[in-house]
């Protein structure tokens, strides 16, 4: 019985160690514009008004802005407006964003948007104590997506590590 517990404990340690590492959460490669850090798509589960939401981030170390691409499923075929990321008590309003594509999936519309935020804003996003919130309008309806608190605690460490890597390579 003791052996069984030690095996299960070892398994738990392996799983936890794997879960907390940022390895696999990002990819880096060299480009003529410096090192590119691509933070893999991540699904958010705390949704309001939309069916699904996932985002990815591309950081280039010779640029002052980061590209945040996100995909969401909605009942409305309408481009979003007033896009912003709310980090604690700060609102980062995005002025540069455009749709990449709109597709139909069953009875919903899949909309992918590309947006630019400053590197400083992404830094604050990665180190926020509370889950950051993506929010935008579709028509008159306010949509939002956020991490669940436990999911944010787990992902924040990974995002922080990736952002530190990026900052050190600038």
């Amino acid at each position: 019985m003791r052996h069984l517990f030690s095996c299960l404990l070892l398994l738990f340690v392996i799983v936890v160690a794997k879960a907390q590492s940022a390895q696999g959460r990002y990819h880096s490669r060299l480009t003529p514009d410096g090192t590119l850090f691509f933070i893999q798509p991540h699904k958010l589960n705390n949704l309001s008004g939309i069916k699904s939401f996932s985002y990815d981030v591309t950081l280039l170390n010779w640029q002052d802005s980061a590209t945040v691409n996100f995909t969401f499923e909605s009942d409305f075929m309408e481009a979003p407006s007033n896009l912003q990321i709310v980090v604690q008590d700060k609102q980062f309003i995005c002025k540069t964003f455009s749709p990449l594509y709109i597709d139909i999936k069953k009875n919903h519309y899949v909309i992918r948007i590309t947006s630019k935020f400053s590197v400083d804003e992404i830094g604050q996003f990665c180190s926020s104590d509370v889950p950051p919130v993506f929010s935008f309008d579709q028509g008159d309806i306010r949509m939002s997506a956020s991490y669940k608190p436990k999911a944010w605690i787990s992902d924040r460490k990974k995002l922080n590590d990736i952002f530190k890597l990026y900052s050190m390579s600038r």
Partner: protein
Amino acid sequence: MKKIFKLAAGCLVALAATACSTTTPVTATSNPVGNKCGIAQTTRILGIFGGNADCGINKAAKDGGITRISHVDAFEKNYYFIQTIGVRVYGE
């Protein structure tokens, strides 16, 4: 019965330790190396569930807003009975 439990636990530990991810090249073109990356992936459980998804180069390029592809990598992650497969497309 105890031996079976021990064996099962040992197998689980071995499986956890051998969970692996592989990236392999698919293609490279003469286009310049870009600064965009697109990804398309799907996760399957026991090789059955979740397999009805588009994880091709077209989807990845579309997701990354890439019009000129420089190269494509395929990746595969195996974790217990869960498998994630997909492609990463780089370009501009």
